[in-house]
């Protein structure tokens, strides 16, 4: 370490090409900067508000109330899905982790164009920071989920740990892959952020959150001719991740309840195997996305 009064005499390092990114590994080397970027985003979010971080609980609570009242009570789903409240909240945690990551990562490079155009940093830094910020932002949702589950008779089983971790890992890897990919594409054509908005809208309906998997099972898995549609549904990382979270937080609250019709407590067949396969594919996608990013990144500064 040096101080300003006695600066280190310059070394004589080797000549190197500046701006040669080392990809995600380089981001890890800059983890101090990464932590500052994440802290900045988290801190700035509720700056200037009197209630501060408390606001982060309001949004998921209101969202939950709307789903519960309109979809649960008005549409009458509560009769079809036991402990519907926890069923949605478990889904919401994963769905919003993903949509927030996807949306903010896609815009992350453009948002930081002032930096991208002036100073060389590993540009993967920006989507990675978005992912981490989103991960921090789901904490209130998780607290609400845990509280709701405990209030409705949740108990601890060992299986919840791998289930919840696998669900979280899938979204993290898949979110990283699509975040990297779209953040780079969006620099070239802003149309991609519109595509992301539409995909985000679809995400919401593509998971067993406001309806139960029981319905999908009846529709697609009962009929051998429609099985392909069921398999397609289960190829969605979001759907699997949501069900893994439901396995961890929702199933314990309903599985041993004699008043519950157990046929309504249905999750995807071979949930863990599917989860592991999807995680492996998602990790592979991260490598592919990194390749694309590395290809597009050298001309970011001139495109912005």
């Amino acid at each position, binding site marked *: *370490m*040096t*101080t*300003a*009064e006695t*600066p*280190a*005499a*310059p*070394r*004589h*390092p*080797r*000549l*190197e*090409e*500046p*701006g*040669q990114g080392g990809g995600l590994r380089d981001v890890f080397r*800059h983890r*101090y*900067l990464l932590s*500052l*970027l994440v802290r*900045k985003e988290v*801190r*700035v979010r509720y*700056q*200037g508000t009197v209630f501060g971080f408390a606001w982060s609980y309001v949004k998921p609570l209101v969202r939950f109330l709307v789903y519960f009242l309109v979809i649960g009570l008005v549409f009458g789903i509560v009769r079809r899905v036991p402990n519907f409240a926890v069923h949605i909240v478990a889904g919401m945690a994963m769905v919003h982790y993903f949509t927030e990551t996807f949306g903010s990562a896609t815009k992350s490079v453009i948002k930081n164009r*002032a*930096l*991208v*155009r*002036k*100073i*060389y*940093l590993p540009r993967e830094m920006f989507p990675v920071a978005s992912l981490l910020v989103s991960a921090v932002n789901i904490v209130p949702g998780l607290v609400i989920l845990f509280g709701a589950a405990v209030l409705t008779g949740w108990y601890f089983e060992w299986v919840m740990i791998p289930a919840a971790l696998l669900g979280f890992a899938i979204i993290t890897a898949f979110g990283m892959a699509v975040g990297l990919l779209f953040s780079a594409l969006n620099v070239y054509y802003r149309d991609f952020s519109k595509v992301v908005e539409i995909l985000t809208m679809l995400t919401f309906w593509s998971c067993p959150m406001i309806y139960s998997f029981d319905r999908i099972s009846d529709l697609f898995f009962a009929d051998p001719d429609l099985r392909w549609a069921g398999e397609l549904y289960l190829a969605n990382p979001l759907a699997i991740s949501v069900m893994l979270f439901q396995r961890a937080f929702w199933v314990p609250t309903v599985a041993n309840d004699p008043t519950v019709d157990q046929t309504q407590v249905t999750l995807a067949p071979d949930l863990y195997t599917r989860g592991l396969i999807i995680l492996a594919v998602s990790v592979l996608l991260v490598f592919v996305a990194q390749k694309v990013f590395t290809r597009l990144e*050298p*001309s970011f*500064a*001139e495109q912005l």
Partner: protein
Amino acid sequence: MATSIRVEHVSKQFTLRHAKTLRRMVTQVAHRKPLKGSYYALDDVSFEVEQGQSIGLMGHNGSGKSTLLKLVSGVMRPDSGSVRVAGRIAGLLEVGAGFHPDLSGRDNIYLNAAILGMSQAEIDGKMEAIVDFAQIGRFIDTEVRHYSSGMFMRLGFAVSVHADCEVFLVDEGLAVGDAPFKRKCVRKIKELHDEGRTLFLVSHNIKQVAKMCDRALVLDQGRLALDGSPDDASKYLAGEYDEDIEGDDF
């Protein structure tokens, strides 16, 4: 002496997209006009800089100065040829690019210094010197959006000059703050140079280059037109260059 910057046969071409929307593309094609155009921002530029030299990069607007600076800093890559630099690069490139208005001066120092590649320990060690240099004093824990524009620029400058580097880039950013602060900036940059850092200064200002640089490069429409003393550069640019308008930054 070791080589600090080596630029070999570097060219950089920019593409201009004439039609950005599908509708415009269709009309362009219908009128048999091209969809894209391109021009050379840099055309076969080569030079070498020794460690510890101070170079003034000059030329008119649009001559390719900023592009060359961006290639040296690694923000852009050349289309052909190679740019190589020895050691860490820091500099005054649009002072305060990484500042966030809602963070305090102190938080912004951490953020900006980390962007310039400093570690937490390094920043902790230099914090006092940076705050001192910026003359921010008791406002250091105030949010930056309440700063005057002078304070904002001083803070940005203070962080940049405290970055540990071998190559220091200055993009016409010298004219910050009031006259005393400008003098302080120039002194500090000279000090960085005296300590053996390579200085790469982009400027319109012949007096400034003559004062601070031992060598000047002049770019003319993307080509290296002159590589010589600041005097030569001023002679080359004289006639077309009106010193009286831009000559009084110091």
